[in-house]
C-alpha cells in the first residue's frame, strides 16, 4: 500500500484548493467534514508537530475559523462547538502549574486524548484513500454477462434491516386498516364473559342490542355473541324477547 502514502488525491486536492484561495477563510465548510479535519488542516498549515501541538495558537486559529464560518453564514455544526470547548479546556489545563515533585512519567499531558484522536482519525483518512483507489481499480474488472439461470438463483436478497422495514410496513398498514381490531386483539371470550357477568351484577337486565353496539369491531361483536351463547349454555343467563324483532334482554339466572 505504499502508493497510498505518496499519492493522496483527496488531500492534494484539498491543499490545492487552499493555496488557490486568496482569502483562506473563504473555505467551504464541506471541506472539513468534522472538527478533526479542521484541526488536522490547521496543524499541517502551521507546520507544527501533532505530538506537541501549540494548543493556544491552534485554539485561537480554530476559533477564528469558526467565527469566519459564522460570518460567511455557514452554519457551524454542533460538533465544531464541542471541539472548541474541548480545546479551551485543554488550554486552561495547560496553564495550571504542574506539581514539581511529580515524576515525569506520571504527568498527564492534557493534550494526550486529543492527539490520540487526531492520529486515529488520520489513519482512517489514509485507509479511506486506499479504499477509494482499490474501488477504482476494482471497477475496471468486469464479470460475465448475466445468464438465464442467474434470475433463478439470487439469494433471499434482503438484509435484516430490509426485513425490519418490511415488517414495519406490514404493521403500519395493518394498523391503518383495522386499527380497532388490532387494539383489541388481546381480548378473549373469557374477558367478555366476565364483562357481561359484571354488568348483570350491577343491573338485573342488559339489552343485547346495547351490548353489541359497544363492540368496536366485528371481531369483538363475534366474541360478545359467543360469550352470550356460552353463558346461556352454562345456564348463567337467560334471554327474553318481548316482541318479534324487538330487543333481546339478557337476564341473570338465579343459581
Amino acid at each position, binding site marked *: 500500500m505504499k502508493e497510498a502514502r505518496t499519492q493522496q488525491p483527496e488531500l492534494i486536492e484539498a491543499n490545492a484548493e487552499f493555496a488557490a484561495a486568496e482569502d483562506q477563510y473563504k473555505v467551504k465548510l464541506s471541506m472539513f467534514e468534522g472538527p478533526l479535519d479542521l484541526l488536522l488542516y490547521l496543524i499541517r498549515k502551521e507546520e507544527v508537530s501533532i505530538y506537541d501541538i501549540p494548543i493556544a495558537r491552534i485554539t485561537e486559529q480554530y476559533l477564528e475559523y469558526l467565527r469566519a464560518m459564522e460570518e460567511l453564514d455557514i452554519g457551524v455544526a454542533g460538533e465544531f462547538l464541542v471541539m472548541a470547548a474541548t480545546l479551551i479546556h485543554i488550554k486552561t489545563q495547560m496553564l495550571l502549574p504542574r506539581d514539581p515533585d511529580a515524576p515525569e512519567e506520571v504527568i498527564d499531558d492534557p493534550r494526550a486524548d486529543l492527539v490520540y484522536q487526531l492520529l486515529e482519525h488520520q489513519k482512517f483518512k489514509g485507509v479511506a484513500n486506499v479504499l477509494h483507489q482499490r474501488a477504482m481499480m476494482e471497477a475496471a474488472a468486469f464479470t460475465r454477462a448475466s445468464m438465464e439461470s442467474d434470475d433463478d438463483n439470487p439469494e433471499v436478497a434482503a438484509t*435484516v*434491516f430490509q*426485513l425490519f422495514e418490511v415488517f414495519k410496513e*406490514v404493521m403500519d*398498514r395493518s394498523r391503518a386498516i383495522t386499527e380497532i381490531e388490532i387494539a383489541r386483539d388481546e381480548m378473549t371470550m373469557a374477558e367478555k364473559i366476565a364483562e357481561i357477568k359484571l354488568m348483570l351484577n350491577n343491573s338485573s337486565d342488559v339489552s343485547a342490542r346495547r351490548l353489541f353496539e359497544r363492540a368496536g369491531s366485528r371481531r369483538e361483536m363475534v366474541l360478545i355473541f359467543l360469550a352470550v351463547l356460552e353463558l346461556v349454555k352454562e345456564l348463567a343467563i337467560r334471554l327474553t324477547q318481548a316482541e318479534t324483532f324487538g330487543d333481546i334482554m339478557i337476564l341473570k339466572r338465579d343459581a
Partner: protein
Amino acid sequence: MTVDELKPIIESLIYVSEEPITVKQLAGILEGESVDDVQTAADQLAEEFNSRGGGLEVRQLAGGYRMTTRLELSEYVRRYLKSQPSARLSLAALETLAVIAYKQPITIPEILEIRGVTSTSAIKTLLDRRLIVAKGHKQVVGRPMLYGTSKDFLIHFGLNDLSELPNLEDFEDLMTS
C-alpha cells in the same frame, strides 16, 4: 495492433457480451482495426482457447462468438445451479417472513389478520426454502400449526440469535438526523 494484441481484448469482450458478439461489433469497439484482422484474431483466439482443454469454450453461434462451459461438463454445472436457492423471494413471501420473524411463534390465521391477505403459498415457499419451520400446534380451537424461523434463517441473515434482529429503535437511529 497486432493480431496477438487483439486476442485478449476480444476474449474479454466475448466474455462480457450477453449475446453472441459479431466480428462487426468487435471491429466497432476496436476502432481503426480492419474487419479482416479482427476476424483472424477472433478465429485464432477461439482455436487457442478451445485447445487448452479448459472448462470453457469460445463457440461460433448465431453469426457471433460466445463463451460457454464445455458440454461434457454440463452435469457439474447443473449440479451447481441446483445447489443454489431456487428463486428470489416475492414481496408476499418477504412480508410473511418478516411477520413470522418478529411475531413467532405464529399461526397462519394470525398472519392473515396482520397482513390482511392469505399467506399460504408464501408459507409454502418459506418452508421449501427452509427459512421457517413448524413449531407445533397452538392449543386453541382447530389447533392451528405454529410457525417460526429456522436456523437457516439465522445463517442467511448473519444472526447469532433472534435477539439480534433490528428493532424499532435501531431503525429510528438511522432514520433520524
